[in-house]
Each structure stands twice: as structure tokens, then as C-alpha cells.
């Protein structure tokens, strides 16, 4: 996990607007990168850079909403703040439904924008941490043998060792050994934590 400084990505097809927004964000201390079109952004950006997106919703070619969907499809993404010149209710509803952090109208008030960017960056940080944690859990899960996997599934469903041994056709002792190994590999300090981790990783009870 990289700990770079977060970057605000501004995508707008109008140069003067891009420049102005960038200046405003910089004056508040953010790092900014500007792009003239969604395509330009998609081609050059590294998904690992933390930050958020400020998008004009109506641009020729790929528009803001479509970009958001494209990013979601990639599995990566940044929190999105939409800007629009036209305050259109259906459009704003659609934007919020598709998961935008905020939907602001132009000319945009500096405090509204900066507040939205701030919360977006924090959300991004939180999201990244969560993703990183999830990735870690899944990594750990991947180190389990298939047998250990089975045991994990049974353990987190609340079954006693005895029952698990009976279900899997081994002795309780073996189960205890597996359980200890699973706990170690998963780095869980308690059963409750293991359950939580398993749930996070999407392990289904049998």
C-alpha cells in the first residue's frame, strides 16, 4: 500500500474552467491534476494513486456518468463529485444513485466544492484502507489449504469441534490442530475476530 499524497483529478472539456478549478483547489492546499477529456484521464491514470474525481457531467464523447460506470467496471475507482452547468433533477438523481459523493452546479461555490473534495478524499482513504484490508484477508485466506478452508467454514458457522470432526470424518484432535493453524494464518486473536474476517472475505457457511 502506497502512502502517496492524495490528488484531486479534475476533468472538464473547457480549458478556462479547468484552470480556475485547479487554482481554487491548489489555494486550499490540494494536489491537482487536470484532464481535458475522460479518455485522456483513463489512459494516463494509475488506479493506485489516492484521491478523488471532479467531473463535468456533460462532455462530448464519453460523459461523466459513463466514465463513472467505466471505472466501476474496472473494479477501481475514486469517489466522484459531479459538476454541471444545468441543474436537471433527473440527471442529479441518476448521478447520486450511481454512487457520486456530491452533485454541484456551476458556478460552483468554493466552500461547497472544497468541503465535498475533503470528504471525498477521506472517503477514498477509508475505501482504500478497507480494500487493502480486504486484500490482506484474502491473501491470508489464500494461504489456507483446502482442508483448513473447510474447517474455517465450519468453525465460523458456530459448530463445536466435535461436530466438525464428525461432519468432516476426522477426530476432534485433528480439527483442533487445523483450527489453531487457521487462527494463526488468519492472524485472528479471537473467534469473534475470525468470524468477522471470514465474513469480510466472503466465506460462506456450509
Amino acid at each position, binding site marked *: 500500500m502506497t502512502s502517496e499524497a492524495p490528488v484531486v483529478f479534475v476533468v472538464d472539456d473547457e480549458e*478556462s474552467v479547468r484552470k*480556475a478549478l485547479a*487554482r*481554487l483547489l*491548489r*489555494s486550499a492546499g490540494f494536489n491537482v491534476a487536470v484532464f481535458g477529456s475522460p479518455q485522456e484521464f483513463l489512459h494516463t491514470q494509475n488506479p493506485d494513486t489516492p484521491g478523488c474525481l471532479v467531473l463535468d457531467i456533460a462532455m462530448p464523447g464519453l*460523459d461523466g456518468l459513463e466514465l463513472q460506470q467505466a471505472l466501476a467496471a474496472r473494479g477501481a475507482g475514486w469517489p466522484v463529485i459531479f459538476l454541471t452547468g444545468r441543474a436537471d433533477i433527473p440527471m442529479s438523481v441518476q448521478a447520486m444513485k450511481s454512487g457520486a459523493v456530491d452533485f454541484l452546479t456551476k*458556478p460552483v461555490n468554493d466552500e461547497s*466544492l472544497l468541503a465535498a473534495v475533503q470528504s471525498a478524499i477521506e472517503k477514498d482513504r477509508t475505501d482504500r484502507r478497507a480494500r487493502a484490508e480486504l486484500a490482506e484477508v484474502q491473501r491470508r485466506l489464500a494461504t489456507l489449504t483446502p482442508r483448513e478452508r473447510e474447517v474455517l467454514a465450519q468453525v465460523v458457522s458456530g459448530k463445536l469441534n466435535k461436530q466438525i470432526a464428525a461432519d468432516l470424518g476426522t477426530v476432534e484432535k485433528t480439527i483442533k490442530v487445523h483450527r489453531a493453524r487457521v487462527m494463526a494464518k488468519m492472524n485472528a486473536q479471537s473467534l469473534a475476530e475470525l468470524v468477522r474476517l471470514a465474513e469480510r472475505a466472503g466465506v460462506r457457511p456450509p
Partner: protein
Amino acid sequence: MSWVTIIWSMTAATCLTLAGVHLLVWLRARDSWINVLFTVCAVAAAAHAGFELGMMRATTTEQYGAALRWSHLPGAVLVVALVWFARLYLRAGRLWLAWLVCGLRTLALALNFVFSPNLNFREITSLRQIPWWGETVSIPIGMTNPWTLIGQLSSLLLLIFVVDASITAWRRGDRRRALAMGGTLSLGIIAAAGQAALLVWGILPLPYIVSLVFLSIVLVMGYELSRDVLRAAQLSRELRASEERMSLAATAADLGMWEWDIVRDEVWATDQSRIRLDLGESERMNFNRFLQWLHADDREAVTQALAKAMNGGGEYDSEYRMVCPDGQVRWVAAAGRVEFDAGHKPIRLRGISMDITRRKQAELQVQQQRDELAHLSRVALLGELSGSLAHELNQPLTAILSNAQAAQRFLAHDGADLNELREILKDIVADDRRAGEVIHRLRQLFKKGATQRQRLEVNELVREGLKLVQSELVNKNVELHTELALELPAISGDRVQLQQVLLNLIANACNAMAEVGASNRKLVVRTRFSVGEGVRVTVSDRGSGIPAGNLERIFEPFFTTRPEGLGLGLAVCRTIIGAHHGKLWAENQAERGASFHFTLPTAKGGQA
């Protein structure tokens, strides 16, 4: 009273009467020489008749000789006058021959007075009395004078002269004159000279009756001349009738007729024109006065039109305003033709003028209404595009606000970068100006105004128009392609109205593609030039096209397929393009969709 006296007296009297009449005619029209010559002929004939009577009444040879001698005087005068009369009347005859005849006859006359008793006889020995017409008359017996041949020669030459002149006249086409006058004169000369010769040479024992021949000649001459007078009277009547007809026609059509004598600078005009201009019957008008009545703005154009007519083709055509004395302004259309002299200098301009005030007012009204309609349609169109227009203003405003707020924040820090602030302010100013431009352009479009003609670049017009609607296109997910020809000649037109047409077509195209899937909305704007039609602008869409039967109907007023549409847009567009001397039409494309084309002639009249 004897017949001879009566007849010869009447001959003389007739001749004198005719002479008197034609003398009067000549006194009235001094340049009518033919009448003078006739008078001279007639008087000479009368005198000759008198002398002939004297001869017939002579009792002694001396009396006869003297009478015959003096009769040569009127005879010669008659011959000379006849020569010139014939020449003038037939407008032909060799000049040298004429002079020869005159010269010979004069010589004969001179010799006549030299010889005694006279030219014809060396000596008259006696007089014979013969009965004739119930009377006894004297005829001479004596020796012929050989010099009489000169007199006879001159008569022969006169005959030749007359015949030659008649033939020339006949060949020229003046057949009637040639035959009548030429024939009569010839016969008369033959008869007179023949009879005289026969008498002189002693062949024919008859008295001189040459006067009767002379009388016939005089009568024929008189008749011919009076024919001319009668014809002149008839022509005069016909002319008057024709003038009255013209005058009636002109009055009925409210036409004024005028004539400008360029050389003397005098203008004649019919009552119509005079009444309108409050001119007195006898007041004279000249060119400058006419110019004064013209409206100041039209003077130049009229002067130019006149110059063109006088220097070149001779046809004059113009429309102008006249300011009447009572302050009223009237529109007049004038047409005329210039008459040139032999050296192609203009000497006269004749023409008519017609009051077209009512027509002009109607035309102006129509133009005004057209402009108003175009304006209304334009405002409606702009209403439809209002979202897009607001967006155009919004962009610069957004940039300005964010820039300004950024600047405020920079200043709040210590050690703000002044260069950065300068950049910010520069950008703010630029964006503000941009917004001002958009407002200015909008104001132009919203303005109601009379049509203005300017030189315009079509590509620039298209780009400006597209800028106004680009946000609309983005909003509706329409993909725009432009194919603008590199070199286009300029056109002459009203910027606002032509942009209205373009915007209307683009708005229609967007509406046509509303049902089409978002990824297939393609709009193409193309400009092209061809010599035949001028500049052509094409707007193509990918909608469902236009039903074949409606390709022309869509341009009808109030025809619309949209529930909220008024149906006037395309009708107004056609009117606008028509007023620019172009054409607007629609076609369906082969694959999908419709395309609208309009053509505009190039600025210097490049359309074929």
C-alpha cells in the same frame, strides 16, 4: 366675243389665279421654293397666252413680229423655271444639264432680241388669215431664221433633262411623281416645241396654240402641289387624333409624359406632371430644377442613370422619390429613350413617368412584415435553445468565480505569489470578455431589425453558430462533424438571419434524432462552393428521414409533425434564403436520415 378670246383670256386668268394662290402659300412658308417657281411658271404662261392672243389678232407683219418676239421672254422664263421646278419636285436631274438648258435658252433669248423681227423668222413677208374656231386668225408666212435651232435645241435638252430626272425618280421608287409630273412635262414639251417647230418651219399652217399646252402643264403642276397640301392637312388630322389617343391613354394610366431638350436644357411635361409639381402652364422647367425636386438621397442614382443613357445605349430607367411642394414624398418610376444626332451626341430625351407610391408603400410594408416574422421565429428558436445559451454564459462565469475565490485564498496566506495573482486576474478579464461576447451575440439575435446586407464568410458564420449550440448538442448526445471547405468566396447577406436559418436546421436535426439510440446521433455540417450555385451549406442528420410526399410540404407555413411546434420555422427560413437569392431544400439520404441544403450566391454575383 369670240371663242379664241374667251379661251385665251381664261387661260391667262387661270394661270394668274393659280400663281396668286401659290404666292400666298410661299409668303406663309418662306422656305417653300417650289411654290415660288410655280408662281413664276404660271405668270410666264399667262403672259405667253397674252402674247399669243396678240399674235393671232395681229393685222400687220410688224405687229405679229413684235408679239412673237416678246413672247420669247415669258417662254424663256417658263423654261428656266420649269427646269428648276422639275429638279426640285422630282428631287433628281443632272445639274450640268439643267445649267446647259438655262444657258442655251438665255442665249436664244438674247439672240431673239438681237435679230429682227425675232429668233424664229428672218423675215415675215405676209400674214395669212385663216378661219379658226369661228374666227379669223393670222398666221405668218416668211423665211425661217436658222438660229431658231438654238431655241429648239434648248427645248430638246429640257425634254432630255425631264425624262432623265423622271427615270431617276422612278428608279428611286417615287413612281407616282415620276409618272405624273415627268410624263406630263415631257408630253407638254414635245407638244409645245413640236407645234412651234412645225409652224416655224412652215410645215403646219396653224397659229401658235402653245399656251394651251402651257396651261395643261401649269394645271398639272398646280394639282400636284395641291396634293401635297391636302396630304399635309390629312397628316395633321391623323397626328392630332393620335395625340389625343395617347393623351387619353396616359391620363387613364396616370402617366406623365416629358421631353428634355438636352441642347437647350428645356423640359416639357404633360399637365399631369405639372399639376403634381404645382407648375404653372407656362413656367419653364430645366434639368436643375428637376434635380431640386428629387429627394436628396436619389439624386446621385438618377444622375448616373441619365449619364448611362446619354453615353451609351440610350435607354433610361430609374426609380426615385420626388418631394412635392406641399411636402409629400412620392415614388416615381421613369423610363425613356435618348435621341442622338448624326455625331452620336445626345440631343433629346423623351420618356414617361408613373406614380408608384402605392406600390412602393406596399412593398415596404411587405418587407417590414417579413422582417417581423423572421424576428418572431428567431425569438421562438432561441427560446428552444435557451438551455444551450445559458450554458454558454455559465462556463465563463464558473471560471471567473473559482478564479476569484482562489485568489482570495491565496491572499489569505502569507507570501502570496503575485505572479500567480496576475495570471488569475488576466484570466478573469478574458473570461468576462468572452461572456460579454456571448451576450452581444445573443442581443443581435434577439434584436428586431431591418435586413442588413454585409460581406460575410460562411465558414465563420457556421463556426459561430455551432458555438452557440454546442452545449445543446452535448446535452442531447449528438456527435457533431464539420466538413468546411477550405476556400470559400464571401457572400452578401444578413448575419443574424442566416445564423437563424442554420440554428433552425440544427435544432430540427437534433429533434429528428431524439428517438435514435444515443450512440447513433450523428450531425454533419458541410460547406462547399460550386460555380453554378454559389456557396452551399448542408446539415445532415441520422433521424428517420422525411416521408417522400412531405419533402416540399415541410416548408409550408404551419406544417409540423411535433405537437409543441408552430410549424413556421422552415417557412421563415425559406423566405430568408429566398430574399438572399438562394435556395433551400430537403433530401432524404441514402442510408439514413435527412439532409437540408441551402445555397447563397457569392458577393459579386457569382451565381450563374
